[in-house]
């Protein structure tokens, strides 16, 4: 496997709320390899978005990073801890090394200035000459299948939702970052636009070879785009592994429940299962495995001891935090056979 | 005793005491001592202030509050203190009335809590109450001095004006009259006229706004264009021009003139709100049921607009007071004492603006108007909370 460009260790993020500290992300560790796409899946409120805001250190004022390291490997091989960069260094690191495509393309562009001005702003902040930025932007706009000249000089309100999303994609690649974080880039658009954006994304990845951290609650999209999948629940990664492993041999009860809750073409509507209960309170999380209250496989030890994230027996790259992973796998086989 | 001229009177005291017996009795009956005594005092004061006009509505409100403490809602076993076996879903007319009264009382209590929650807003409320109390009850204790008091001339003094002293806390004016007495007696007309003006403007705005939105078409464009037209003209110069053409010798005429010129802002808001409401299902249902324009306005539109209307009313009252005092200041309306604005006008006319010892005579009405206006602005913050349904629902 290719080299690791981002290695996150024991990252914890919390928000200050009136009732106390909300542990939105706790002890998350993962590695991102060059050129791969890692998708985070989970319910809303599971900490996916917080994790990504923490990665680019743009949390809201009430949020803070409690602990952890984020070792980033530059193209020249130099390793830096992103969380230890000062404000100025971090500002430069952003976008030139790691950019982001936010959800909600409608509101992600400043309505009162032209696309070109947004591109020049970005270029100026990173000391790139205007003319270079323009050429690069026109090239990228063409790559995302837009009319470069027209879009470059447009205001956001003159573009449709799908066009804006592609503009965001183009802007995110402007400085040739190694990592692009995509926070549900396809939720706000219709199914056809979603299709074309995914196609464009795949093409761009082939061509420019950047890594993607993909956040989605849409399992179908994640399955299509990702090389590896990480399931998040209550601020923790509960299972992480190659996409086929996760989808065909899930070892965590929550992943199985998620897959079971997703609509499939082959199954009728009556076979859709929702996950009973609701996500736990993150101010006072339950002891043991955080999923045990909603888990069909829970045993006595689940109520007391949190299971560690460790490799499964048959695949070293597939990690899971569940003591009953064999029973989960068996249950999945049974569902598949039906 | 009736009508809008409100000054405390001794009969009013008895009327208030009499009215107060109702909530007091209710308090004794339901064993809600504090609420009963509070209701008694409220009735006493409002009866004292306005006679029957103030006493009778207060009976209803204070009784409702007392009832809301004691009432057990049999219809709703989940939120009330009724035991489950007591629940009886059939209610008599009396019980229904009781339930509605208790709801009203609960609403009043919530509003009061909302009112006190915002510190700045509550300060504004207290400021307004201060002026109301002084204006209403002050005349009982301080007699009005209308005639010149030449006998107060200090030996050797060039004028009758005197700085504050023990007998005259705000000093004497240019005719040797007590400034405090003018302050106490001079606010009522101004405040009442401003409130009248605000109410007239609000009524016009609500009616026209609803009509424009509900009828649409020609009516709508006519009203909207008129509103735009009036909004563009600077209102105070227009008021000046009109004041020169019409003899504004009655307060009501002044209020009416102001109201006619100041409805467009609120009208636009009401129109927009009604337009957006018209699209909603429950209003469409009401239209389909042929419940009539007024039903729709009073039941569907008004409750949604009440917060905005109330805040706007306060602002209109503010601007009305500004304009009225401005007209008086320029001497463009017939002057009649006692009046805060006239105090400023005569003070300036007599050239006392530049006399240091006359500060009391001029500063008193100026500061009073400034504080009253400030109180009104601050009060709107509480009003927003009182009428905010989201905040109100959490009792």
């Amino acid at each position, binding site marked *: 496997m290719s080299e690791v460009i981002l290695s996150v260790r024991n990252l914890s993020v919390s928000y200050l709320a009136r009732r106390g500290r909300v542990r939105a992300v706790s002890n998350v560790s993962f590695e991102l390899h060059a050129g791969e796409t890692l998708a985070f899946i989970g319910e809303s409120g599971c900490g996916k978005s917080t994790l990504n805001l923490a990665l680019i250190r743009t949390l809201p004022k009430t949020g803070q990073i409690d602990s952890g390291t984020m070792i980033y490997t530059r193209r020249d091989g130099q390793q830096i801890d992103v969380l230890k960069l000062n404000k100025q260094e971090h500002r430069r690191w952003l976008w030139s090394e790691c950019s982001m495509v*936010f959800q909600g393309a409608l509101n992600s562009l400043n*309505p*009162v200035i032209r696309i070109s001005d947004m591109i020049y702003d970005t270029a100026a*902040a990173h000391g790139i000459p205007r003319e270079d930025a323009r050429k690069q932007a026109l090239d990228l706009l063409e790559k995302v299948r837009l009319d470069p000249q027209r879009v470059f000089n447009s205001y956001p*309100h003159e573009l449709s939702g799908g066009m804006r999303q592609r503009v965001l994609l183009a802007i995110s690649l402007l400085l040739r970052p190694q990592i692009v974080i995509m926070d549900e880039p396809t939720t706000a658009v219709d199914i056809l636009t979603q299709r074309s954006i995914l196609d464009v994304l795949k093409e761009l990845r082939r061509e420019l070879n950047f890594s993607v951290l993909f956040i989605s609650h849409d399992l179908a999209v994640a399955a299509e785009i990702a090389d590896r999948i990480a399931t998040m629940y209550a601020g923790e990664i509960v299972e992480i592994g190659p996409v086929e492993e996760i989808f065909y041999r899930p070892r965590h009860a929550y992943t199985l429940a998620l897959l079971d809750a997703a609509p499939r073409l082959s199954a009728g509507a009556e076979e859709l299962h929702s996950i009973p209960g609701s996500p736990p309170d993150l101010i006072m999380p339950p002891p043991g495995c955080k999923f045990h209250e909603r888990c069909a496989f829970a045993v006595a030890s689940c109520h007391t001891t949190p299971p560690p994230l460790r490799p499964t027996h048959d695949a070293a790259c597939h990690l899971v935090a569940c003591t009953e992973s064999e029973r989960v796998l068996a249950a999945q086989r049974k569902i598949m056979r039906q | 005793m009736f009508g809008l001229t409100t000054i405390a009177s001794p009969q009013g005291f008895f009327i208030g005491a009499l009215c107060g017996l109702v909530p007091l009795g209710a308090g004794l009956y339901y064993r809600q001592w504090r609420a009963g005594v509070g209701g008694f005092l409220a009735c006493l004061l409002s009866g004292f202030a306005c006679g029957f006009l103030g006493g009778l509505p207060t009976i209803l409100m204070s009784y409702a509050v007392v009832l809301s403490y004691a009432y057990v809602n049999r219809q709703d076993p989940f939120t009330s203190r009724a035991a489950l076996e007591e629940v009886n879903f059939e209610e008599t007319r009396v019980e229904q009335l009781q339930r509605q009264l208790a709801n009203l009382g609960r609403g009043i209590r919530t509003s009061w809590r909302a009112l006190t929650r915002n510190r700045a807003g509550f300060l504004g409320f207290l400021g307004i109450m201060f002026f109301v109390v002084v204006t209403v009850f002050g005349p009982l204790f301080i007699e009005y001095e209308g005639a010149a008091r030449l006998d107060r001339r200090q030996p050797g003094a060039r004028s009758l004006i005197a700085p504050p002293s023990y007998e005259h806390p705000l000093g004497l004016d240019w005719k040797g009259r007590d400034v405090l007495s003018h302050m106490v007696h001079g606010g009522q007309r101004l405040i009442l006229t401003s409130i009248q003006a605000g109410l007239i403007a609000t009524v016009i705005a609500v009616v026209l706004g609803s009509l424009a939105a509900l009828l649409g078409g020609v009516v709508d464009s006519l009203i909207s264009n008129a509103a735009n037209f009036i909004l563009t003209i*600077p209102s105070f110069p227009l008021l000046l021009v009109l004041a020169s*053409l019409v003899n504004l010798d009655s307060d009501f005429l002044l209020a009416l003139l102001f109201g006619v010129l100041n409805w467009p802002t609120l009208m636009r808001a009401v129109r927009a709100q009604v337009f957006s409401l018209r699209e909603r299902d429950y209003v469409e249902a009401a239209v389909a049921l042929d419940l009539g324009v007024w039903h729709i306005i009073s039941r569907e539109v008004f409750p949604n607009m009440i917060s905005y209307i109330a805040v706007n009313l306060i602002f209109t009252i503010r601007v009305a007071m500004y304009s009225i005092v401005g007209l008086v200041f320029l*001497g463009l309306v017939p002057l009649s004492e006692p009046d805060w604005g006239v105090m400023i006008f005569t003070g300036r006319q007599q050239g006392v603006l530049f006399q240091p010892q006359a500060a009391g005579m001029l500063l008193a009405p100026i500061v009073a108007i400034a504080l009253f*206006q400030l109180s009104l602005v601050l009060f709107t913050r509480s009003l927003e909370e009182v009428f905010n349904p989201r905040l109100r629902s959490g009792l």
Partner: protein
Amino acid sequence: MSSLTSSAPKLKRDETASLLIRLRRLTRSYAFRIIAQGLITIWAVTTFTFFLIRLMPGNPVDTYIDALMQQRNLTLEEAQRAAAGIFEFDPDEPLVQQYVNFLSKLVRLDLGKSITKGGTPVLDIILRYLPWTLFCVGVALIISFALGVLIGLAMGYWRGGLLDNVMTGFASIISGIPDYILALLILIIFGVQLQWFRVGEVRGGVDPTIEVGFTLEYIGSVLRYAFLPVLIYVLASIGTWILAMKSSTISTLGEDYITVAQARGLSERRVLTSYVGRNAMLPLVTRLAISVGFVVSGSVIIEEMFQYPGLGRNLFVAIAQRDYTTMQGMFLVITSAVVFANILADLALGWLDPRVRLDKKVD
């Protein structure tokens, strides 16, 4: 040859067509709409005042005739003729004819003659006083808007800071007090009681002993005399700007594009100016037009108080003297000025916010 001759008219037709298209585009353009609306308003105000003055019970023309009859012992006919001379109309003419005459004179900027000032053209009077008001009110509006927006932006951006806490209280208080009350308070407290400035000296527009001219002394005097009125206009209106800008900034800060701009690594200054500031300012620009009306309204009393030789004070003087022609002309000019300010504010909004320039989105 034949093809040449046939193409010529076609070309011409194309030209007229393109002219028509251009004309249509012009009438649909944002600026055209705004200006046309303004002109219609001015026309409506003109018509309104014309009929108001002539049709009101006890209208000024009759009042003037009565006054002439009493004061100079004229007969009704003589008085009517004299009045017609001053008001410049033929009393026997139908009202509509009078109205048309009035409008046609107005287009030629003829506003009639003053009743009280011995037949001085109203336009001359207005032109003498207008610059003072324009200067004072204009400077005050610019200062208060710019300062208010800057302070409000800073308060919203560093919310909960010292500046925010101090200025919120200050702005709440200052925005609650009417302008002329504020003026009186300043005059009495700082002028009469504390004697920071001599009250008697700041009356008028300029020191009358200084020779009029483009000299440093003269300009200095003008600025010194304008200081207090401008200060009062600024104080009376800045509170509203501060509070409005603060709340607008706070809501803008919650927008996604601000987060995106920060994530793009833009400097804080750039984010604050072209992303937060510019967007937060938009709702305030529309309020600017309303504010112009308020300040102009206030100027009548403020100018009267300081004996400032502006249009506001002279409108009051004309009203007090029942000089209806002057009053009508001044009211018209004041309204036109406000309408003009409205047009400017709308154009500024169009310049700042591309969305209002177009009606429909391109999809």
